[in-house]
């Protein structure tokens, strides 16, 4: 099972907060996005984390991972 989270404006654009998918294949981040965000192209500026570490859309996700998509950060 893979847990997928969306934050801030991206959560609103995608209309999803958190979802879980079951998969037996090894998927890239980009494939996971396409699978869960039906029709919405992956935004250029999107930031991606696997298990709370920054990564990119070519990274491979494995069972048990937590994937997060979010817009540019604006803290501080």
């Amino acid at each position, binding site marked *: 099972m893979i847990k997928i*989270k969306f*934050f*801030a*404006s991206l959560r609103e654009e995608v209309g999803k907060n958190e979802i879980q998918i079951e998969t037996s294949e090894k998927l890239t981040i980009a494939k996971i996005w396409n699978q869960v965000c039906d029709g919405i192209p992956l935004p250029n500026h999107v*930031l991606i*984390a696997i298990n*709370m570490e*920054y990564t990119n859309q070519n990274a491979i996700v494995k069972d048990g991972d937590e994937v*997060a998509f*979010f*817009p*540019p*950060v*604006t*803290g*501080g």
Partner: protein
Amino acid sequence: MLVKITENEFNPWKYLQNHELQAGKFGATATFIGTMRDYNVGDTVKSMFLEHYPNMTEKYLQQISDIALQRWDILDTLIIHRVGEILPGDNIVLVATWAGHRTPAFDACRFLIEELKAKAPFWKQETLIDDDTRWVANHSN
């Protein structure tokens, strides 16, 4: 090293006063405090909601604190960051560094706030005077 995310209003000076290093062992303390303004890009802002990615924020802030402690000749670091609903005048972030000398203290303090601004997973949503809300688009200088 201290990293803390808090939903409560905090007084940075009290945090600093209570974060005592051993007298005589440090010569320089550099701090930065970010405080909510009541204006942004030309508009009056009534309040703000600070969303974050729980656990990743702490993890990321600990990582940059580790890097600072390795890269500069400093003795300690402290980062406090507010989340949730906040009002103008409320403090958003406190960064502090302690060192023997001022150059590493300043450089590490600046590094921590720049890294935090660039990559720590926080997002600001402003509520304007007419109750419209908007996501802040980019971190400023």
